[in-house]
């Protein structure tokens, strides 16, 4: 891990002072209109995320987890409410500004990996490093997730867990300040799920990346600094974990 530490030292972003919020969300509401029907995905969510912390989002299906994450990541805009990322009000960003924001600050990991099937693992990572300001070399990012030897394989030649780790490498290669993961282990078995979570916690710890992980699996909440539960578009509870557990020690 010495290697990762050295990379962490090299990050250009100053660490936010402890306690400073990276995200400040106030009264976020999201309403989807489908013809006559209105779906209230979020009903006034207030939320702060702090620098370098690891947050797990829990909640039943349809409770609005993905919607919240998408809004934080600049993939979607709330119907009402304000989201501040550091000094920026994301709700005032237009499409171009949101694109810049995602490009410069956010790393995404999706439940279904979303790799480009026509590109190899390394090339999938380069896709992001091509446009990042100060990225890790693609192969270095892959070795972070333990896949250096599979760099030239196409997604179809990788298992689900390996694909997800490529996706993580792709998300962190730009050295994002925030890493947003939507059910990264949803499609994986325990062993590979743990491998993927280890990759995520390592990044969070070593690079100081503010990380939010959505999961349906309550066990996983043990790796978090804080656990936020959503229910029917509202935050039902926020728990602080006094005893964080190493991802490697999890089992379900």
């Amino acid at each position, binding site marked *: 891990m010495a290697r990762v530490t050295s990379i962490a030292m090299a990050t250009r972003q100053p660490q936010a002072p402890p306690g400073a919020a990276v995200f400040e969300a106030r009264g976020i509401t999201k309403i989807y209109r489908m013809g006559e029907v209105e779906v209230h995905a979020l009903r006034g969510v207030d939320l702060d995320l702090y620098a370098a912390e690891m947050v797990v989002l829990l909640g039943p299906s349809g409770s609005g987890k993905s919607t919240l994450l998408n809004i934080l990541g600049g*993939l*979607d805009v709330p119907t009402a409410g304000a989201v501040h990322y550091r000094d920026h009000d994301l709700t005032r960003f237009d499409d171009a500004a949101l694109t810049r924001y*995602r*490009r410069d600050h956010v790393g995404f990991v999706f439940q279904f990996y979303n790799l480009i099937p*026509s590109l190899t693992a390394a090339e999938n990572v380069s896709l992001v490093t091509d*446009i990042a300001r100060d990225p890790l070399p693609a192969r270095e990012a892959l070795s972070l997730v333990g896949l250096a030897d599979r760099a030239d394989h196409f997604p179809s030649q990788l298992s689900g867990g390996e694909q997800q780790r490529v996706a993580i490498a792709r998300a962190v290669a730009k050295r994002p300040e925030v890493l947003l993961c*939507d059910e990264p282990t949803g499609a994986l078995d325990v062993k590979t799920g743990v491998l993927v979570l280890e990759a995520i916690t390592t990044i969070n710890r070593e690079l100081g990346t503010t990380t939010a992980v959505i999961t349906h699996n309550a066990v996983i909440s043990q790796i978090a600094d804080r656990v936020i539960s959503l229910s029917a578009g509202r935050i039902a509870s926020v728990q602080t974990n006094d005893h964080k557990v190493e991802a490697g020690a999890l089992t379900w």
Partner: protein
Amino acid sequence: MTSLHRKLLRDVARMWPQLAAAALVIACGIATLTMSLSTVASLERARSTFYERYRFPHVFAHVKRAPDSVAAQLADIPGVLRVRTRVAVEVTLDVPGLDEPASGRMISIPDRAPFGLSELHLSRGRLPEPGHPGEVVASQAFAEAHGFQPGAEISAVINGRLERLTIVGIGLSPEYVYQVRPGDVLPDDKRFGVFWMPDRELAPAFDMDGAFNDIVISITSRASLPDVLARVDRITEPWGGQGAHGRDQQTSDRYISDELKQLRGIAKLPPTIFLCASAFILNIVFSRLVRNQREQIAALKAFGYGRFAIAAHYLEMALLVAAVGAVVGLTIGSRLGEIVTAMYARFYRFPVFEFRLSRLAVVIAIGVGLTAAMLGTLASVRRAASLAPAEAMRPEAPPDYRRTLLERLGLQRLFSPAGRMVVRHLERQPLRALATCAGISLATAVLIVGSFVHGSLMYLIGFIFFTTQRQDVTVTFVEPASPRAAHEVAALPGVLESEPFRAVAARIRAGPRSRLQGVTGLPARPRLNRVVDQDERPVPMPHSGLLLSDGLADILDVREGDIVTLEVLEGQRPTLDVPVEAIVRTYAGTAAYMERSAINRLMNEGDVISGAAIRVDPDARDRLYRTLKQTPRVASVNIKLAALDSFRKTIAENVLRMRLFNLTFASIIAFGVIYNSARVSLAERAHELATLRILGFTRAEVSTILLGELAVLMLAAIGPGLLLGRLLAGLVTNLLGGETVRIPLMIRPSTYAFAVIVIVLATLVSGMVVRRGIDRLDLVAVLKTKG
């Protein structure tokens, strides 16, 4: 190379058959466009250079006989630059190696070049020299048709005597770029030639010493052509002037202009069709591509690729297709241009006529190809660029199937589950189904347009040579002759039937419009020289009044029953208001008819005739030809069989070759459209079909669903396609129709059948490809990805 470019290349490599089909169709469009535009430019350049260097005149006039002093009067007309007077006569030729008599047009020339106007381009040999009687320059078309070199000899009936002529030179004249015997449709270079002979020899032979009968004039650029024409008419009237005309009624130039008009017209149609088809193919390929990659696009956006970068990514692929299409199209197009130019060079004889790829054509072709590619992909590219990135996190909503019309009508029991899937899928995407139908219809139509011309021309041959001109030979006398001449003709060896006619030079006026148009007088009920109405029923000659051909009626803008003024330009030059009794059908040139006795009465002459149409006993043909070759009174002999032969040969060579191009192109469209539709259908439904396979459906059952859909679309498209083909064919006949020849819109059942067969074949082949795709469905891989 960035990773995005790498993805582009891999996508291209994966989809190459579909992209290649689109590129090929674009290439066809660009090829036809380049070919016609460049050929137009080459032809125009050849014409303007030839006309300028060899001083093609602006005004042409023929008189009966005028003294040389009249030339000075003509030169004094304001705006006239140069005047050249000469003797021009028709003669009968006896050409070695040719059984039948040929005709020649003899034109007198000064002893030395330049002549001042209408110069001769000598491609071989020399001009006739003083002191060597009987020397002539022969037109290159005639000399080539016979393989004559300088030194060859022919005989001509000159002023009643058979004279030997020595060809000392072979030449080209701007007046005979297209060399066709007056009244003929296509050139017959073996049996018609132009000859240039010194004035001092030709004039005395035709009693034109110190006189002339033909005038060419050039005018300044500021002169008014109508004014000059009117003045020439006034000056030549006492000398039997037959009316001056400009270049627009000069036969050779008329043909070139018609050809250019056709080429320009046709330059637009096929490229439009091809580029529509390629836009269509690109549209289905790209909309599928973008739909297929929506999660990839969303992920790219999540990583910070902007809408512009995404749009550029897909546009680059479209541009690549367009670029490949352009390169292939330009290559094929210039090759086709060379072939077509070479074909033209056999009809249109210029000193220099070479194909040059016009730069403008290249620019236009590339521009149009790019436009087609953009049109075809823009909607998909826009969809890709504006895709909401949050979608990346959500699987696509399951397609929204509804109870179809069929089910609401309670007819579903008539269908198997597979049949129901076909119907529901078609009903769910009616626009897609409609677009595919439109594409197949277009392909059907193109197949018809590409092949109907041959049938139309065969019909035209039947019309000209069997429905209307039923004679075997037409004999024209040097001078109008008495009925005794008719008896003489009837008494010629082998003549079974003879039908005399009277032809006079005239001008027909209708309000502000007028036209120099000879009038032919025929018996009340012609049996050989038949004239037919729009339904091809024979029309009897009216006792008074005129019959006008449809083309002429258009030019004069008159209808049946209108009154026109007929000014005869021969004899006592009578003028008369006559009703238009009927409009008759012709496909070549223009014509006006009257009953012969009516013309005789009008001319205040006896039972005079200009020539006769005759039907010949085939066994006695050679004897007749031998006699005709030596008959002094005969100015020209027109043999139908020979004309028919040359017509057929020309068609065989050119139309068949063009048809081959057309059909190749049309088949490419048909296959391109159908193949791509089938491929996209397969790709879109691979998941669903694989699921069915897993559930236990056989390959055959699963194939039925997809192939059934294809078959339904094809069957629905064929009917409208045949109709569209007929409409487009009508458009093509309009575009191809000039004053010289009009193409009848005749589509043979075999043409329709052929189009249907090609479409069915294309569907079968595409179906087989799809079937192979279904057989090779990787069930596991398909289920690993999301629907």
